[in-house]
Every structure is written in C-alpha cells, then in structure tokens.
C-alpha cells in the first residue's frame, strides 16, 4: 500500500517537474506571501482568532495554444490570537489545477474563464483554549474562475476571482469532553472521513486577487488577495485571509 502510494507520488511529481520537455511552453513560479488570517471555529465558541500568516506557493504553468493549465500547490502557516491565547493554523493545498481559456483579447485587455480543481486541508489548534484538540476542514471541489488582464506600456494588472461550485467536504464533528486522539495518522485519515458532497448548501470558498506586474519583461510581480472559506454544513468554520504576495517566475 505504502509502495503504491510512493510510486504514485513520484510519478505525479515527475510529471509535474519534467513536463516541460514534452510541451512547447511552460513557466515556473514561486511565491511567498504574508497575510492576516482570521479564524472562527464554532467548536471553539466561535471566538475569532486573528494573526499573521505566512505561506509558500509554487506554480507551474503549461500553455497549449490558447489554453493555460496551472498547477498551484501551497502551504500556509498562521499564528492567530484571541484574548492573549495563541492558536495555530495550517492550510495545505497539495493539488490545485486550474484551466483557463481566453474569451476576449485585444491589445490591452484580456478576459479568461476557467475551472479549478483543488484539495484544501486546513488544521486549526487552540492549545491554550482547547488543549490538544485538532480542528480540521477538508474540501475537495471544483470552482469556476475568471481572470481579467489589462496591460499598458510594460505594466500589467490582473484581477482574478474564483468561487467554489461543488465538492466533497469534511469537518471536525465534535470535541470529546475527555478522551481524544491526536496521532500522526489522524492528520491524514480523519480529513478524509465522513466526506459529504454539496455545493452552496455546504460551503463557500472564494479566492480573489489583484496582481500587479510592474514590468512584463521582468519576472516578478506583486499581488494583493483575499481568501475566504465558510463551511456551514456542520459546526461552522470560517477562515478569512488577506495577503500580500510576491511572485518570482523562472
């Protein structure tokens, strides 16, 4: 089982990393972002924990004539607080594929539409408040996205908007009063238990960003974005993250 999983992972990584050899165009991009995260967990009395978050994102782009395919995994770690109590959050997106197709283009303006498929895992801990309990939210779903670009001289601005459509979601269901479990395997097994399929009746996940490319001949850009997760099918969990992102392509 482990060997099969390992082989799958190696094959997946190889396809991603060395795919440039079999495609005409491609682009790699790494980015770091700093943000301000807010978490509201019903199982933690709906107290809102707020604090800094840092993240790392990798992006791989493939271009097939007019189509663009992006692979966009990321990992973010937040350290929010409430009333002096520290919390911790981890947002892990191992799989994030977006396909975008232009629907309008002229010299300055471009508009592209597409679809995203991603697996989102968030883990939250409130150690001062609720000990060693782990709170989690899993989302495996699709989301339509739209990207508008405007270019003038050598500068460019891109506005990106994505909102969840449907998917499978899973949530922490309760906090046992006494005995609990916090094994390494819980981080993998529990997020995939009791998955429920749904759409806006279960959750909403919004990504929006504005990216500014100062000089298109250079290979870096800045983005200001917001990501909002709201799962309300079980105990409600909300996460709101504003971030400032620096991207470097190579």
């Amino acid at each position, binding site marked *: 089982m482990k060997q099969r999983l390992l082989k799958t992972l190696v094959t997946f990584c190889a396809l991603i990393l060395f795919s440039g050899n079999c495609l005409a165009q491609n682009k790699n991009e790494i980015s770091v972002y700093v943000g301000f995260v807010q978490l*509201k967990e019903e199982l933690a*009395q709906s107290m809102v924990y707020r604090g800094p978050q840092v993240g790392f994102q990798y992006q791989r782009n493939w271009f097939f004539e007019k189509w663009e395919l992006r692979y966009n995994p990321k990992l973010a770690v937040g350290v929010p607080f409430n009333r002096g109590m520290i919390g911790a959050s981890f947002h892990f997106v191992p799989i994030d594929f977006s396909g975008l197709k232009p629907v309008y283009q002229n010299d300055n303006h471009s508009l592209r539409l597409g679809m995203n498929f991603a697996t989102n895992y968030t883990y939250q801990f409130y150690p*001062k*408040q609720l000990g*060693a309990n782990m709170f989690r939210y899993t989302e495996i779903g699709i989301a339509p996205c739209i990207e508008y670009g405007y270019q003038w001289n050598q500068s460019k601005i891109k*506005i990106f908007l994505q909102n969840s459509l449907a998917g499978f979601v899973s949530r922490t269901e309760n906090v046992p009063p*006494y005995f*609990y479990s916090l094994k390494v395997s819980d981080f993998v097994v529990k997020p995939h238990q009791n998955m429920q399929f749904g759409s806006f009746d279960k959750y909403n996940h919004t990504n929006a960003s504005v990216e500014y490319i100062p000089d298109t001949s250079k290979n870096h850009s800045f983005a200001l974005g*917001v990501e909002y997760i709201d799962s309300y099918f079980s105990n409600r969990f909300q996460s709101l993250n504003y971030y400032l992102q620096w991207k470097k392509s190579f």
Partner: protein
Amino acid sequence: MEKIILKITSFTVIISCLVLTSCLQEPDLKLPFKTYVPVNLNDGWELSTPAQEGINETELQNIYKYYHESGDLWQVRSLLVFRNNKLVAESYTKDPTEITQPIAIWSCTKQVTGILTGIAIEQGFIDDVNDNIQKYLPEEIARHPDKGAITIQQLLQMESGIAFENGGFNGESNQLLLAKPSNSLEYILGLSMLYASGEHFYYKDGDPHLISAILQRQTGKTMKDWAEQVLFSKIGFKNYDWAVYKDGITMGCFGISTTPREMARIGHLVLNKGSWNGQQIVNPEWINEMTSVKIPKEKVNFFEKSFGYLWWIDEDRGIVFMAGHGGQHVFIKPAKNLVIVTTADKTDEYIQFGFNLDKSFDIVDRIDRITN
C-alpha cells in the same frame, strides 16, 4: 484609462476587505441577563427566593448582571445559588439547555472519589486509611516495589510521591487523555518516584486514579457502577456520565460529566454531613475528616488553598469546595448554609485565561456579603 482602472481596482479591494471582515465578527459570547429565577424541573430541588432565604435580591441581581455582562468573565456558563437546601437563583450565560445538558466537570471528579473512599471504608472494603496500597494491589506492587510504602491516606492527600505530571502535552495526564497507555494502573505505578511517599504534597491525577483502581478491585465493580449503587442513586444524582479508561478502570481523577444542579447534590451531601433527606449516606466523621485540613495551604503546590482528603478548603472564608479544570466549582459555606455552583468553559491555561479561583471567589465573596 490606467488611472481609472487602478482607482476602481483599489476601491473594489478595500470594499471587499471591509465587507468580508464584517463576516468574521465575534458573536456575543454570553446571553444578556434575563432572570435568575429557577425553573421547576421536578428533579427534587425545592425552589425558593433569595429574599425568603435571607439574600439581598437587588444585590444578587447586580451580581448576576455582572456575571452575564462582564467581558472578563467570558468563560462562565452557569451560576447557581442554594441556601438552606433550596435553590434560590440560577442562570446559564451561554446555553440555557445546560440546565439538563451534562458538561465535563473535570477534577470535581476527585472530590466524588474522596466521598466514595469514605463509603468504602464504612462498608469494609478498605480496612484503614493508613493501609499500604500493597495490601490491595499485591501483584502490581510486586512488580513495582518502590510504590509499596504508599498508603491510601497519602493518595487522598496527593502525597504518593509518584512522578506523575498533570501539565504539558507530554504530561502523564495528557497521555491518559490520549488513551496511550494500554493499562492505566501499570502506567502510573511504573512511573518513577519524585519524592518519598508522604513527604510532599504534589497535585496530580495519578493518585485519585489509583484509589479508583483499588476500589474497583475491592468492590468487584467499576467505581462508576459501585458509585451508582451506594451514592448516586441515593441522592438523586441521575443526569451524568463517568468516563472509563480503556482498561476498564473508572477515571478517579476526572471523567464525570453532569449538570450544575447535580453537582449541587454532592455539595449538599457534604453540607449536611453525609445525610440526604434524613438518610445517612456517608459517615459524618468521614465528611469531617475529608474536609478538614490535612495539608496546609503553605505546602500546597497548586492553588493557595488547604487540602483535605481530595477536597479543597479555604480556611479564611470557612469554605470547602470542589474544583474542576476551567472553573467548575461547588463552594460550600456551612456557617451560612450556602452552596454556590459555577461552571465555565475549559481553558487549558486555566490560571491565566480561565475562570480561575480568584475570579470565582470574587463572585462567592460578593454573594456571601449579601447573605445574612
């Protein structure tokens, strides 16, 4: 054109941020105060009014308002006042259903274990409080001879000397909460000794859990079942659960989930020297022993309060009390025939962030002052 686009973009981003921020406003953590008048649940509690029982109603209302509205007391969940064995005031700050919905009362379980130890002695399951635990756990002590000198009394006084640590992620309490050891008795007895037994008070969950194991061995029943038979059924303590470790031993240190009204039954049993509705459930001598100072507060490493047999004592106030993690308390003031119950949200950093004992006693003192 560029400037217009940049302006529109900036405006949109700012408005979006403001709109989304408002989505994550924290709700009021407590309900506004309405009334402290208790509801008749036909659960055996006689209801009365503060005035009839000699408590200033206006001042009590102010205390309840403060309890509901103070931001400093964001953790509190309930406050119940009993006088002369009657329930005179009751309010739930977060969820009114908690009037019948059990919550974890954590270390208040220890005080129940203390009472059950007295019943076990009375019924002959334990010969003497000074007996070595070797007498009751011979096979286990043969495997862990360094624990042979520990007595029942030392367990009741947190003086076993066993290196059991309540706090921290790697602490022994957390290992039990994570249900990592397969056998809780072997796990505790297998720990090293921090002090020689009887030498120092050291507050820990391990000692009362050993008592539970001993009572279980002696009575032939889980402490949960035996407690139901000899204690709970006799005082109308019905709405509860008691966690059992995976090896079958009832948790003697924490593990009871119950309601504030049920907690008050334990408090009144002690207030009335072991008697309930005229029936003697616990030997009054044991109640006196259990609630008299065995460890003066200067030697207590946890609260700055004195300790009896698993019971806490505030000598200055003339109060004996049950205390569970996060602010679960039953305060008994025999001189005024007064029992006060509080429950609160558990916070792991109880002293710093929780409804700690100082905050609790502030409320208790205020009620005490308005009680004639």
